[in-house]
């Protein structure tokens, strides 16, 4: 069901854990669906300097989280906001149809974290 790339990312996820000094945190999903994704970012001058995730979820959710952090580090928040769930899916070489929603969570968690940052810093 999963391709080898997804399995590989799941096996060795990048940027997993708590992020010391994070100034932007977004959490999406709910336990009923079995997926909760938490994205922590360090944003300096609108650039995402660092990102880490924590995820309660399936293989696809964990792989998408990891992939998403890799895709946004170094990007401006505007650029990061442009990242679509389909970009995450593509970067993972595809996901099974019923797992696409996990990539949506990844997109949403980035948006949520940036929103959190904006609320705190750009008033």
């Amino acid at each position, binding site marked *: 069901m999963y391709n080898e790339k997804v399995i590989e990312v799941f096996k060795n996820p990048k940027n997993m854990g708590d992020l010391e000094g994070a100034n932007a945190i977004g959490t999406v999903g709910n336990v009923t669906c*079995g997926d909760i994704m938490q994205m922590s970012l360090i944003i300096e001058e609108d650039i995402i300097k660092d990102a880490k995730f924590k995820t309660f979820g399936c293989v696809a959710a964990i792989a998408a989280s990891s992939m998403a952090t890799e895709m946004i580090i170094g990007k401006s928040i505007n650029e990061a906001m442009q990242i679509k769930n389909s970009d995450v899916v593509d970067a993972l070489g595809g996901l099974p149809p019923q797992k696409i929603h996990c990539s949506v969570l990844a997109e949403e968690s980035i948006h949520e974290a940036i929103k959190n940052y904006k609320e705190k810093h750009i008033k």
Partner: protein
Amino acid sequence: MELIYLDNAATTPLSSKALADMTPYFISEFGNASSLHEKGRMAKRAVEASREIIANSIRARSNEIYFTSGGTESDNWAIRGVIKASKNNVKHIITSAIEHPAVLNTCKELEKEGVLVTYVYPDKNGLISVEDIKGAVNSNTILISIMFANNEIGTIQPIAEIGSFCREEGILFHTDAVQAMGTLDIDVNKMCIDLLSMSAHKFNGPKGIGVLYIKTGVKIDKFIVGGEQERGKRAGTLATPLIIGMASALEETLSNRESKNANMILLRDSFISDVQHNIPYVHLNGDKVKRLPNNINFSFEFIEGESLLLKLDLDGVAVSSGSACASGSLQSSHVIKAIGVSDELAHSTIRFSLGNNTTREQMNRALKILIKNVETLREMSPLYDSKKKEGKYV
């Protein structure tokens, strides 16, 4: 790294004796059991000898055994066939909420066609109460279908009691014994079973072959029609090698059932207590005592089951989350939900199912691998985080 296969409830390897018994029937004795010539009669004799072995194993008669393509077809046929054969205007079935999808989805299809179905709920250990079944019966009840033992949580149902109640009431009784065959003692007469489903690949037989036992006199329509095979009741060229493999595997499994069960129960119970002693926030699902010898089912808080499954797999331990059949769907297991487990925990469920040859050494290694991966995934989980902040976990 040798694989530790703890997914025997999903499927089992074919017995090498069964394969050896099957092999001649692929190429040299390949005749069609319906053919009149010697090549056909040879196949026919082998089929009938196998039928007898299978019949004996549940104390049925040979002519009550019908070969199907597996447990799913047997379940479909049993339920649909009885309903179709009934002349009642209103038709009512009683089943349980924790049946295999082969039973549940057949019932759901029949509901669309106007049949009434009551789904009896189990208690928190997965036990169906005979009283609940009695309470659900009405004058239109034609069929009661309750599985012998559950495929996810291993709970064994009070089949003999349900059977004798059905017999008294004149209601037909079907049991899906797919998970029970090979380990549990089944006597269709004593237990008053009218219809029973089995599937060979669950007891080291080949995939693609099963049986529906139909007690003599039970009114049931055909399901697959065509030629006159199986006394006109189930059409299609008989898969002779598979039939032979099924009987051979069954015979082998039953030959030392008691000692194999005793061994599995020992391994099962020490694994359960090891997990409970070594991993916090775990919940055993299913009944502790009325349980298949080979079934272990845990929910691990803060972890999603599929991720744990894959982690274990990467470390060489094959298990299942929910049932293999439900895999690919997003829903958490209907069985786990039916026994009242919360949605969150339902997503955190892993089944370990032992095989005849599972060793203590394997179980010990599996335990270590499990502990490590539960730890890793919990570290990854934002839910575990909040738990720690609440200071509840030390």
